[in-house]
């Protein structure tokens, strides 16, 4: 396939929940989103923070979806290029490891989606499943119906360490490489910038623990899950560093939400 072929053929679409349908975009090769992504475990973010003074202006300059009601993807009104995102880390369950590995094996292609219709906003539902690679160096998030990738699959590297996944042009997931290097207590915080292997096991324990049906058990104030969360909290607290503090903040937040007092 020539470069020209790829440029003309690479159309992708984000399934939209409201209005029901899809938001079509073309891929602009070799371009990346400007901001470095932060990962607060709850969400993967890039662009102006929703609490920042710049956000209102950003919303005015862009079109797309809003985290108020769904995952957030904002595209520049003038150029159509993806300008920012807030993507929820799923909590429904885990991606089948083999399936995740097969997507991780795809080559990365640098580029950015450019939205075609920039008149109206839409909703993009959050995805369902997640998977932390065995070596802790990649987080894979996927739609529950995403198949094994084939020649029509695309791993679009939209920025440093962040890829969007498409199958037959349809948005199916995202990958964050070196998740610990992007770990922050809150979106907008400065990222650690480097991996910390001491946290791989603790992060895996968090992701194993804070997921359905455990979250439902937490909602019932299950003492066993509570004890495991407290133990995790103590373990994380014994590790120093920016990433550890971010993870600690996430664990404490869960404890505060489900086990106040």
């Amino acid at each position: 396939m020539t470069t020209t072929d790829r440029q003309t053929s690479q159309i992708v679409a984000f399934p939209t929940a409201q209005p029901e349908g899809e938001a079509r975009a073309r891929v602009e090769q070799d371009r990346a989103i400007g901001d470095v992504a932060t990962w607060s475990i709850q969400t993967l973010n890039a662009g102006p923070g929703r609490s920042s003074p710049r956000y209102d202006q950003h919303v005015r300059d862009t079109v797309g979806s809003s985290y108020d009601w769904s995952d957030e993807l904002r595209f520049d009104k003038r150029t159509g290029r993806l300008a920012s995102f807030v993507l929820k880390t799923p909590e429904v369950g885990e991606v089948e490891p083999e399936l995740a590995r097969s997507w991780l094996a795809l080559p990365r292609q640098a580029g950015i989606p450019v939205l075609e219709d920039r008149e109206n906003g839409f909703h993009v539902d959050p995805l369902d499943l997640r998977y932390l690679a065995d070596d802790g160096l990649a987080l894979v998030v996927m739609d529950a119906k995403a198949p094994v990738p084939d020649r029509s699959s695309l791993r679009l590297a939209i920025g440093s360490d962040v890829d969007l996944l498409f199958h037959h042009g349809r948005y199916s997931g995202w990958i964050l490489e070196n998740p610990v290097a992007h770990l922050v207590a809150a979106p907008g915080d400065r990222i650690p910038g480097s991996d910390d292997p001491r946290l791989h096991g603790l992060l895996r324990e968090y992701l194993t623990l804070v997921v359905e049906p455990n979250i439902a058990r937490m909602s019932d104030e299950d003492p066993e899950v509570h004890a495991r969360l407290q133990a995790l909290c103590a373990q994380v607290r014994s590790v120093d560093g920016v990433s550890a503090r971010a993870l600690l903040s996430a664990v404490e937040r869960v404890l505060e939400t489900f086990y106040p007092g």
Partner: protein
Amino acid sequence: MQRAPAATGAVSGPAVTPPKAGIDKDGFIDRKDGANLHTDPVQSADRLVRDQPLPPATRVFVSGTHPQGGDWWYVTAFLPDSMVRGYVQGFRVNTQLPEPLAELHLVADGETAEGLAKKQFSSAVSDGHDLRYYENVLLYVNQSRHPPGVRGTYQDPGMLGGGSNNVQLLAGELIWLVSAPYAKSLQSAVPSGSLTGGAVAKVKRFVGHIEDILRSVTESRHHFGEVAGEYAQAIRDHLPEITGIVAAFIMAEATSAFLAATPTGVGQVAAVVIQLALAAFGAAGMAQAVVEAVKHASEWLTIAWTAKGDDARIAAASKEFLKMLVSIAIAALAYVGVKGNYGNALKIASSMPTGGLPALAVIGGGPMGGGAGAGTGVLLGPSTGSVATAGNSMMQADKDGQGGGGPEESGPKVPEGLDKRLTKIIRDVVQRARAGKLLKAGNYHPHFDDATVLEIIRDADAIYQSEGKAGRLIFRKGSDIVVVEGPGSAQGNVITGYGPRGIKGDSGAAALGGVASDGGAPVTDAMVTSGTIPVPQGRPPIPKAVQIAP
């Protein structure tokens, strides 16, 4: 009682470009290098209002933004010897206070958590056990600050004497200090500490009063048409600046006087506000009483103090506030000899000394901080009894149990048979709101101040769940809504809000008309359930939602 020496040089410093109203929040300079104060940062004629930046941890009141640059925030600050106003970069100001009475503090070399806890909470500390609890509070309220100014681990409050200084301060960093009653209210989150219910109730009531008074000031611009008159034009163009001065004064200097809750102290707040306005208008040398202004000031404070968040009463207070300003403008115009063209007659000082302002009430045996303590008293109107009227009325309201707050168990009833997880989320969120606590999502997008969010949740008329995978919960009170996370690890965390009690913002104004500082469009039950809440172009439609309570 003698009138204090008048402030001189009232209209001084370079002219500051009038701001676009909006924001209306109390905040602090949250940068270690402070914040330069500009007259017009967007234009080439920009100058600095003062040579030095506003120091880190300076309390400011944010009244709005630059008309051409929303990133530049218009602030008013009461420094130890002067009031200054102008534009600073928005990101240098933190308006997300952990509680309304919180203060930002720059940790000094050698300062310790124990020493700071003693200084800040001395009136609440009864023994070594309590002191350790308050050190834990310092750690707790600063845990999410970055870079951290407090570090360490919670220490055992039961351990008397000795100890290992588990909680440490980092010199040169900024940290939050909270009021003692608020610290006590954290006992469910912070290890140990004994709760003094009366103190907590008192501070909640008090904060409600202050918030209502501030609302009556900042929302006064919505009532200009109802308080018209030939002199109204004299203040119309300067209203954002004047409300900034008054609101900054209330937060920086007057809270202690209100908290002291003595009629004389509270009444003198009204007197000082009048003096401030006169000084701002360049009429600080006026020696004569402003009887009409005193009357309206008393009405303003009394109505606002007893409003209990009621929109109609706050609107009535706002009108009295405007009438007070018009009375002052009339006096000031006469003083400066203006007989026509009122619209441009008054200039507002970009900075003015506050050393001549009268003293306020004292609390805890000490004088008020700041420059307002330098004077000795004030005579405005026929007697000090006039200005004390406001204080008397307000105190009586509290004695009668009418002041602030509301029925503890108000709010929506959760129907029997509702999904137990949704029931749990609703109960937790409402319970937290009743305790004055708000868990904000990491992606929180504010449209309301925290007090309004808490009130909407606490006293919601109805609760809904949105369609779609995200399944947000919506709390509606009247025509305002608050959106929180649905089931999940962040369940109940507040995401955003919409409605007339918030602001449209730039995007809302562009799509719906009006200006960014206007209240948002009303949200009705029908709009929520049919997915027809108005949104600006480019923003997604709001999903339909199903009512789940009551």
